[in-house]
């Protein structure tokens, strides 16, 4: 097994030059998640539309390995400007693929490059970190709204 399956060009490129990286001044909600394995963390900040239906803006920060940074970069790129509904669907698909319950073909675009991570089971947590964080963040928002 070579490293090419994991460290695809797209991933290395996102790692070197992550999109939506930094602090979001206008954030309406924020969450920090830790990877207990290595102590890495990611903070995801979002600005939802007033009706909570669209991800108007999203940024991430924190420290992490190439996989977690690239994965957060790809995630934020994909969901920025998307509807919350589509965002949650994409998160579910990605989690499904990572956990082996879903075919990798459902993923399109840069995110597809992350499917190689499945051959490195200990690294799946790294890839999922930002996605799990965003899911929880949106769910918290929905709870707050309905409460």
């Amino acid at each position: 097994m070579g490293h090419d399956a994991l460290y695809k060009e797209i991933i290395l490129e996102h790692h070197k030059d992550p999109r939506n990286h930094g602090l979001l001044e206008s954030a309406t909600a924020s969450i920090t998640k830790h990877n207990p394995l290595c102590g890495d963390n990611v903070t995801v900040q979002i600005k939802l539309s007033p009706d909570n239906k669209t991800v108007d803006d999203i940024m991430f920060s924190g420290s992490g390995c190439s996989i977690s940074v690239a994965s957060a970069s790809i995630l934020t790129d994909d969901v920025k400007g998307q509807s919350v509904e589509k965002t949650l669907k994409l998160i579910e698909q990605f989690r499904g693929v990572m956990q082996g319950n879903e075919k990798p073909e459902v993923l399109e675009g840069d995110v597809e490059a992350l499917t190689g991570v499945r051959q490195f089971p200990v690294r799946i947590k790294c890839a999922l970190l930002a996605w799990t964080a965003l899911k929880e963040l949106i769910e918290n928002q929905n709870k707050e709204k309905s409460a």
Partner: protein
Amino acid sequence: MDAQKIREQFPILRERVNGKALVYFDNGATHPKPTSVVDAEVKFYHHDNANVHRGVHALSQRATDSYEGVRNKLCKFFGTNNTQEYIFSSGTTASFNLLSTTLAPRVEAGDTIVVTRMEHHANFVPWQQLALSKKAKFEIVELKSDFTLDRDHFKRAMAMKPKIVSFSAMSNVLGHKNPVSELATLAKQAGAIVLVDGAQLVAHDEFKISDLGLIDAFVFSAHKISGPTGVGVMWAREEFLKSLPPYQFGGDMITFVEDQSTIWNELPWKFEAGTPNIAGVIGLGAALDFMTEIGRGNILKLEHELVKQGLAKLKQVKGLKILGSESHEGRAPIFSFILEGVHPHDIATLLDLEGIAVRAGHHCAQPLLRHFNQTATTRASLSYYNTAAELDVLVSAIENAKKVFSRGT
């Protein structure tokens, strides 16, 4: 025995990982087991399997003799003569929980508990939590820029007249020894109970308990010295042990149970409630024999050579920074490092593809890594059976990792 002869004793070293010969540089996490240790456990289960301190029958007697005999081996190994001073637990973590729980009644609001910046979570979190629950002060002695403990800070901490001072004899991240005896004297002068985490020291140094000075307890795990997992040893001074209440209640730790009260068993059994890890303790005995056979002086010599070679070879790698002393003296071949531009997780994956096992992460020492502004490092922790050739494999794999991450720049 030379390194090659020693290596033959560890079957795991014949494993191949990702098509490559295994280079096991994760000894700090747990050490490989020699055949003799595994055989000792198998022999117990196949020929002597019985509970200890219970029955009159032959097997129970054999099991008890083998189990208790390990306390004699410990006495010999550490140059002491009182078997009552060795308590078996499930590991270093369990021993510190025993200590923090049984010492809890003595800690009051406003008291001070002292640890150091370089502690493993096992010797950090129990005291932090005890201090929190008692509204006591939790003082963390800092490091100097050369990675050694700040003696002046330690002295200032002793001026606070702490109740408990607990520190590691050797950091599992930095790899160098602390001046245990000197620190113990200062702590005793301040009137403190002095506890020492020996989990790493025991694997990398030759010493007697008396060399450690005025300490009250010294704890370690069998698995770091090629013994089984799930076995720990707590050596503690007899008077100190006698001053502690029992930790866990149940079978074996009692002399007599009345309807409304109980008389505790004598030392050491007062602190060994329930059926212990009998086979594991017997395996520890075999591990002590194994180390004695190789010779602890020999181990020290082999490891000193690896320290020299490791530091020299790693220093050649551009962009690599070792977190730990660059001096050869008082140091074990434990090399924690950061590599510019490559995250430890990525290094570890790329090394794994070359068959090299290292640890990437916080090494259960988050307070220490925070001090260095890191969330993770890569750690190659070597042992006496490792070779300079394996270090070369490591260095070339690190160089390769750098190449992967400089693609396109």
